[in-house]
């Protein structure tokens, strides 16, 4: 009978399949065949980054001719999800790109400390703080990311103001805004807070004009007092700016990337807190407004005793995975990716402000940015964990639409920051 033949076969098949099903080891293993390094990032597929990647590859090939390097560009909005899956599985790329701050600090368990490999670069590059946790460096910075306040010089001229001398006090700044709004109908700020990014930029840009130098350094060092009057002042200012009609309308439903930048580029807003690299930066604005109309200013003084500075950190950098076979080899690739030659190409093509202090800048807005780097300090929001940042984004939206008070928001943020 047919069943008789089938039955043992089916049992055997069942056992075999069950065997497969229970084989779920979680042992870290490497998929990097000898002589091949895999790099994950979200940049290498950009046209503006092609030459940079080529330069870095060539530099690495000189040192290690036998090793092939493969760049795998992932979509940015999926990047950390995919990376999370790779980390969970304990296998994946040998070298990977990270945003500085919370994104890398949350994942240092999967990374090799690079201090011993990259010490020759320590002086030449800047922005290490964003890739450092507990005194160990986990990635080399490629670009710098900061939050300068850009302004539209053309609108200043139209309102009869001198664009070479932006206001240095909050009252002067708002008076200028009022004059410009009267003359041109442009709002003071372009605000995009749909992703909750608006508050991050606001905190970092105007925090330098509010906190005293001591409070500032304490904040970065992790001693954050969310109940201090100055911190409260920043968040109250966030609320007041909206209440006084200084923001472009509908900030909670406008994306920072890229609708808010669009508002600024089209001259409908005078100021925007932008970025230094990647997107929403001087190079983008130059294209629309003309290089001569893009101004950069530091925060006006909001509270007595504050010393405004440019908030900046390491923007993106490359780290080495713990599961790679030869960490020294992978670290060498990281060094090639941060070589002066490669980085100057990246600056020239992508308009990113790179971490290499020896790369020379040309455009007016960049020149003043680079000049501010010397006195610049790490941005306030980058010091926060991604959990607190996410909470701050939500609370900032609720402050804007009035469903949460500033005090209640600061209480929640303090609790989240301490845990």
């Amino acid at each position, binding site marked *: *009978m*047919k*069943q*008789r033949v*089938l*039955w043992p076969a*089916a049992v055997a098949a*069942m056992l075999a*399949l069950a065997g*497969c*099903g229970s084989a*779920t080891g*979680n042992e870290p293993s490497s998929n990097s065949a000898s002589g091949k390094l895999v790099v994950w990032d979200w940049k290498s597929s950009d046209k503006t980054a092609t030459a940079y990647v080529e330069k870095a590859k060539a530099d690495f090939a000189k040192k290690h001719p036998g090793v092939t390097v493969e760049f795998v560009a992932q979509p940015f909005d*999926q990047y*950390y*999800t995919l990376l*999370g899956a790779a*980390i*969970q599985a304990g296998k994946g790329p040998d070298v990977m790109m990270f945003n500085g701050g919370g994104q890398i600090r*949350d*994942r240092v*368990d999967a990374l090799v400390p690079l201090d011993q490999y990259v010490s020759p670069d320590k002086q030449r590059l800047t922005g290490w703080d964003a890739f450092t946790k507990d005194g160990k460096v986990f990635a080399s910075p490629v670009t710098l990311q900061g939050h300068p306040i850009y302004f539209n010089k053309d609108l200043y001229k139209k309102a009869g103001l001198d664009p070479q001398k932006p206001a240095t006090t909050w009252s002067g700044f708002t008076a200028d805004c009022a004059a410009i709004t009267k003359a041109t109908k442009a709002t003071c700020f372009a605000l995009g807070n*749909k*992703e*909750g990014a608006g508050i991050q930029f606001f905190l970092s840009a105007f925090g330098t004009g509010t906190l005293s130098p001591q409070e500032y350094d304490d904040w970065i060092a992790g001693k954050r007092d969310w109940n201090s009057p100055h911190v409260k002042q920043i968040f109250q200012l966030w609320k007041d700016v909206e209440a006084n009609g200084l923001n472009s*309308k*509908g*900030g*909670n*439903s*406008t994306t920072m990337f890229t*609708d808010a930048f669009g508002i600024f580029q089209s001259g409908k807003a005078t100021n925007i807190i932008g970025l230094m690299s990647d997107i929403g930066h001087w190079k983008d604005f130059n294209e629309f407004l003309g290089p001569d109309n893009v101004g950069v200013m530091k925060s006006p003084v909001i509270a007595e005793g504050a010393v405004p500075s440019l908030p900046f950190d390491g923007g993106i950098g490359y780290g080495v995975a713990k599961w790679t076979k030869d960490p020294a080899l992978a670290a060498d690739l990281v060094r090639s990716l941060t070589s002066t030659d490669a980085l100057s190409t990246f600056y020239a093509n992508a308009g990113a402000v790179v971490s290499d202090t020896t790369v020379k800048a040309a455009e007016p807005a960049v020149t003043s940015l680079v000049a501010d780097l010397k006195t610049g300090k790490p941005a306030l929001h980058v010091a926060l964990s*991604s*959990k607190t940042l*996410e909470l701050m*984004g*939500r*609370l900032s*939206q*609720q402050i*804007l*639409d009035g*469903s*949460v008070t500033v005090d209640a928001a600061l209480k929640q943020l303090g609790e989240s920051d301490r845990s």
Partner: protein
Amino acid sequence: MPLGDFTPLLARPARAGRADGTGAAPPRRRRTGRLSAERLSPFVLIAPAVLVIVLFRLWPLLLGVNFSFTGDGDRNGAAVGLDNYAELFADPLFLGALRNVGWLVLLLPVAVAIPGMLATFIYLHVPGHRFYRSVYFFPAVLSPVIVGSIFNLLLSFDGPVNSLLGLAGLGPVDWLGDSNVAMFTVVGVHVWATFGMSLVVFLSGFATLDPALLDAARSDGATLPQVIRHVIIPGLSRTIQFVFVTTMIGMLTSMFGLIYVMTSGGPGGSTYLPEYYIWIQQGQMNRPAFASAASTVLFLVMLVVGLAQVSFLRRTGKED
């Protein structure tokens, strides 16, 4: 051959029992052996299907549940008991997401009634019904990302919808930026985008409706509401039941794209749904085990809601 083997499967043991009731033991034992093989054969035959379900559905589900009792980050892989669940139910954001699920359940009758009413009108041959039939179905072929982008433009603060409201003398509404409005906006767009499929299901249900009943009702002088209440709804109870369940599942599991594109869970977390929460925890916060706990809760919620719906609808179906 297979048929020959199969049909007697149920019949044979009974017959054999009766025939051999007084017979000797040895032949009986031999026959039982053969019979048990025959009895087992259906199980063997369904084994591949069962195995696929067990291996690719139930086993991963169990792994996921098991994973939810472990920690993240520093405590990666360590058993943490119910810590994740305790944290989950202390998180106002997750509770907000569950509250939004409650809203979805409450809005469900509306989401079912809209395609139901429109299908009724098409079935009753309102002028232009052929045109409406295809037009109503059209949004169902659009991906949520495209639908979301279209409505992002339409509903932006300085967008056309607010301009129209302005013309009518009404103040602008921040459709996606006001935490009291945003959830209803997203649900409304979701209903707009998906009701075409339910409409088709309703129309196919109407195809099974006996037109004689309608004619009888009409000749008895029934009004349109009476026809709907006493003829159409009872006649379509199974279809309505089906649409209820599929619409609920659709709302709970496929609004991610719309939320992602339209509000990113905002403003202030007011449009969070559990699946979006799971994604944020796994993808942005790098907490896969915690996300597993949230997934387990979502699974249980779906199970409870689904079973409650089916039993509720079955009962009302019987009353009719």
